[in-house]
């Protein structure tokens, strides 16, 4: 009788949130399937019901401590619609953009330097004792300091625009509650040129990794998929606002110029019994073939160009790396992420020199509506917030498709591919082998707390079960 074994990785480490991986082996220890499970549930969509619409941008940002700005702004965009405002004042729009660029910069830097650099610099199967941020600080102190200071700069941008580094309150329905004072502007300008220089270095590191490890990058968790993101109407990468564009694995357009308020006509979500994270797909392609990827890699693939010169140069090199076709390499997410950091820093520099940020026209009001949809590009991908509000100003409906959720199928495919390549026919489970699974997940920088609305750390726990469900072997890594 054939025997099935299941390897369970719980908790996953160096990612945001809590999840586990199970790897299903057949009788010959070959990998049959791997699954990324999201095992906790938070339920923001439910307990937001009955609250007042202007509270929503402040409440839902509590989904996350890493990317609260993304939720704050997506909800604010939805609430702009509720108060009948389709176009903000220049000051309000630019304040929000500045906040958003600071957010993406700090989040991407956090992921690259704090979470992923140990894998890239020491190797996937290097000593586990040093494969962490403290190992980086010891071995590459100058690089570690740059990473920490870059993240600090991004946080300072958020503080100046949102009021606090984490969970600010400045985006309100129809605008913002503050502008950027000259003192705040000058404080940020002091370091901006240094940030440009360091962002370029970070791009060079990430690019260098991909070039130097070409064979690995081309094979590790590489698979064809569609890609989706917001882009500006002229095709430029735009992280805050735009139209939806999706392309297939060959680069052919699936849809383009789609008003994001119509996203329900193009996307659907599937529920699977073993995970609290849903599986979105492109409606017209069905749930089996309609899955897609989002995030930095996808944004590089969907965007025709980047409207800041240094990042655009880097984008062109990135596109050339894949021969002009969509880049399907999961490890290239890191490179794409650093190009975005460079783009954000360039955008921040532009905005800091824009006098509109000192304007006093902060808020607009229009004709009240019952439904609002806000979409933007969060660090991890396209983020959808959809609400309905009744005549008493209370929320009656809420649906969030969080960036990481869009990558659910892709992450499952990534770990399946890596597991099949590296775990098949193995009788024992060396720690470094497990880390390869985590590296594949980590490339997507998943924020599982956001995606599932689950609380907690990200543990990694691996267990072997026989076909009868008996535990054969169990290894745990503490997420703390």
């Amino acid at each position: 009788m054939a025997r099935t074994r299941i390897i369970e990785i719980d908790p996953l480490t160096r990612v945001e949130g809590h999840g586990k991986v199970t790897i299903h082996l057949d009788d010959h220890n070959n990998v049959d399937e791997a699954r990324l499970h999201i095992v906790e549930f938070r339920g923001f969509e439910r307990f937001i019901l009955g609250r007042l619409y202007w509270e929503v941008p402040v409440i839902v940002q509590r989904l996350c401590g890493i990317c609260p700005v993304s939720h704050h702004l997506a909800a604010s965009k939805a609430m702009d619609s509720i108060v009948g405002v389709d176009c903000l004042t220049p000051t309000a729009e630019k304040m929000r953009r500045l906040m958003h660029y600071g957010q993406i910069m700090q989040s991407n830097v956090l992921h690259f330097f704090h979470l992923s650099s140990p894998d890239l610099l020491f190797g996937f199967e290097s000593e586990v004792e040093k494969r962490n941020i403290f190992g980086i600080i010891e071995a590459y102190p100058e690089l570690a300091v740059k990473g920490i200071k870059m993240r600090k700069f991004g946080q300072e941008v958020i503080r100046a625009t949102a009021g606090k580094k984490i969970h600010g309150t400045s985006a309100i329905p129809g605008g913002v509650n503050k502008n950027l004072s000259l003192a705040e502007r000058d404080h940020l300008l002091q370091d901006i040129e240094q940030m440009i220089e360091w962002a370029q270095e970070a791009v060079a590191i990430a690019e260098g990794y991909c070039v130097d490890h070409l064979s690995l990058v081309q094979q590790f968790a590489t698979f064809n998929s569609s890609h989706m993101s917001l882009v500006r109407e002229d095709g430029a990468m735009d992280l805050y606002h735009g139209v939806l564009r999706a392309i297939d694995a060959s680069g052919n357009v699936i849809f383009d110029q789609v008003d994001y308020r119509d996203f329900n006509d193009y996307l659907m979500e599937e529920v699977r019994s073993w995970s609290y994270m849903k599986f979105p797909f492109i409606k017209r392609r069905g749930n089996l073939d309609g899955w897609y990827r989002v995030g930095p890699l996808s944004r590089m693939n969907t965007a025709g160009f980047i409207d800041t010169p240094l990042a655009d140069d880097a984008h062109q090199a990135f596109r050339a790396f894949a021969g002009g076709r969509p880049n399907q390499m999961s490890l290239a997410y890191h490179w794409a992420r650093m190009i975005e950091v460079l783009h954000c820093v360039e955008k921040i520099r532009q905005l800091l020199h824009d006098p509109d940020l000192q304007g006093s026209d902060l808020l607009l009001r229009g004709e009240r509506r019952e439904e609002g949809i806000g979409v933007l590009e969060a660090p991890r991908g396209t983020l959808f917030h959809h609400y309905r509000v009744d005549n008493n100003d209370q929320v009656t409906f809420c649906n969030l498709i969080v960036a990481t959720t869009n990558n659910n199928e892709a992450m499952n495919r990534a770990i399946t591919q890596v597991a099949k390549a590296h775990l098949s026919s193995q009788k024992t489970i060396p720690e470094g082998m497990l880390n390869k699974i985590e590296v594949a997940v980590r490339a997507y920088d998943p924020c599982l707390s956001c995606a599932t609305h689950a609380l907690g750390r990200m543990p990694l726990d691996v267990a072997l079960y026989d076909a009868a469900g008996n535990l054969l072997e169990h290894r745990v890594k503490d997420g703390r």
Partner: protein
Amino acid sequence: MSKQFKFEIDGIEIEARHGQSIMQAADDAGVYIPRLCDVEGLEPQGSCRVCVVKQNGRVVSACTQPAIEGSKVENETEEILGYRRDLVRMLYHEGNHLCPICEASGRCELQAMGYRLGITQATKYPYLQPVRPVDASHPDIVLDTNRCILCGRCIRASRDIDKKHVFEYVGRGIHKRVGVNGNKLADTNVELKDRAIDLATCPVGCIIQKGRGFFAPIGERQFDKKPITLGVGPGKGRGKP
């Protein structure tokens, strides 16, 4: 002119007029006694007990107890501060005070009092987590009694200044809450211009004006720059939030 006399608060001699409460005399002398249910312009009712002091060794509420000539009042002693901390902690625990997502955060007197008293983490009391509905039926005003501390300031303002009797206590004991003169707020004659609706009247985020939440940026809210004290809060010279 009323008769003048002297008494001591924490060893400091202050003057008072006949008929003044301890708190009124203290306010005139520039001595702050913490409070939540008392606010300038409304009759004191001594219900929150945060203004608890000892007058000649006896525990009293400073807002309702007359000053006594030659008496010694203890205000900022460790014993009194301990009473106040416990009282304020219990207010936190019997309501649903979610400061991080409350639009009153930064101008909330309960929050400011918590900071003043050093209450920065969960305490020994259980959270009661009551289930209370939000009354958003009125076009301009919301009543969210999850945040109510039963100070009665809205009740007194509506009754004594607005002459409308929109708000009143209903229920008894732990079930006591602020109700409205009708099935819901929209059934009453309450208006935005009423003193009961003034944001300076409600010390927390129970009575809020629709669509104006989070208008004040972090750093510019009432208690962002100065902690709650005399002139920065509900006592004399209390400014608009």
